[in-house]
């Protein structure tokens, strides 16, 4: 069965003032797959990630041309951005729990959406934390501050917080770069489970991580997508010499 396409990015140009950060980017992101964006710093991979839930709207002087569709709907058209960001959740490089209890961190989004029923909130909190493979570690400290959790636990809490909104897509911007190998392995394991339910797009600086966890990979260089396709193909037999040179560490 052919994979369903979640995002279609077509001829996307993005400018920060006069600087062009993305150049005619064309790429498709498949549903229920993990897609990795790789490339050297400043290549545009995080910029593209932030285009997928319009986080770049928050930056001044950004100009975007081209199209990004989510389930065939143009997300730069006349849409509700809040609704878009509910559908397309995000996890950042540094875990950023709110300075409140574990429970309140997860319940924050649903409460903002108007859910007040305690039983319903309890359900959402438990389900989100279970799905983030954190339940056993925090079930006895739901009412303690989230800031007391370890870095890896905090990051899984942030994933739980994103999941609580029942998104369709989770964007992850270097989600494990601040974590130790064990915490990283836990997040990677988690992604394998999460992709059954969600579409995941991850920006990573670790080639090995991209190779380990993603189904598809796109390699960026100076704002362009040089090569994209199945991860196994990119890492065993890249078509473009620039991809080969980057992933084998011939330039960095």
């Amino acid at each position, binding site marked *: 069965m052919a994979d369903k396409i979640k995002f279609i990015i077509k001829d996307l140009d993005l400018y920060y003032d006069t600087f062009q950060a993305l150049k005619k980017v064309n790429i498709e992101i498949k549903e229920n797959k993990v897609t990795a964006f790789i490339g050297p710093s400043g290549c545009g991979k995080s910029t593209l990630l932030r285009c997928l839930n319009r986080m770049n709207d928050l930056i001044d002087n950004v100009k975007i041309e081209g199209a990004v569709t989510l389930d065939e709907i143009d997300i730069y058209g006349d849409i509700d951005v809040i609704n878009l960001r509910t559908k397309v959740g995000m996890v950042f490089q540094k875990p950023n729990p709110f300075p409140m209890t574990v429970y309140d961190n997860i319940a924050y989004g649903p409460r903002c959406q108007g859910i007040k029923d305690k039983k319903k909130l309890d359900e959402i909190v438990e389900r989100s934390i279970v799905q983030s493979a954190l339940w056993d570690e925090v079930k006895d400290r739901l009412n303690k501050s989230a800031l007391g959790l370890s870095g890896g636990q905090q990051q899984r809490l942030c994933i739980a917080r994103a999941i609580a909104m029942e998104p369709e897509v989770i964007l992850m911007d270097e989600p494990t770069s601040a974590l130790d190998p064990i915490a990283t392995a836990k997040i990677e394991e988690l992604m394998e489970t999460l992709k059954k339910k969600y579409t995941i797009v991850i920006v990573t600086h670790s080639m090995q991580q991209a190779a380990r966890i993603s189904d598809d990979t796109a390699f960026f260089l100076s704002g362009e997508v040089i090569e994209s396709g199945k991860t196994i193909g990119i*890492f*065993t*037999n890249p078509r473009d010499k620039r991809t080969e040179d980057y992933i084998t560490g*011939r330039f960095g």
Partner: protein
Amino acid sequence: MVIRKHFDKELDKLHKEILLMSSITEEMLKDAIIALVKKDIELAKDVIKRDDLVDAKEIYIQELCVRIIATQQPVATDLRLLASAFKILTNLERIADHAVNICEITIFLKDEIYIKTLIDIPKMSEVAIDVVKLSIDAFVNQDISGLPVMIEKEIELDHLFRRIYKELTSYMIKDSSNIKQASRFIFVASYLERVGDHATNIFESVHYIVTGQYKDFKDFESNILAHKKEVPLD
């Protein structure tokens, strides 16, 4: 900016070690045939001794490959190279084993007067050594343009094998006392043919390193098969 000096140094070492192992193997094969033709038992024993060196090299290079994989986590061409290196090593080691097999026959026949002068076997060994060289050159230069020559030589090898087989079976039919020697010489020719097969395997590995595609040597095989029809074995 080149940021993988250490990695490149390790790969360079791997190349050199495989090259060294292949030249030891080539020499063994060459000397095995000289020993057989000249009935030089000392040389035959020396070749057998050198097999320990090849075995040790195989282990050393395997460990080197494992170390590179563990520490450098290679991808793309580097990964294909390392994955193929294991296969290349195995094939080189088998070639060395065949040189040993030939020397064992030399020692076995040491008290015999040969039933005929050996002409085609040395000829066949030259071609076998050529194909080993071709495959190793392809590996060293990461260049598979030698494929047509490789095919040509493989066909020649096959042709020589069939000729030797026919001639020696006729000796056996003529006089059953020839069986002891003739059957051993057929073994020698068969070992040389196997050497050609191992060289082909090495060439296929190089093809994978260079192109990323496992070549199904169908054209190659169909050439050989067409040729086999022309010169049947029996």
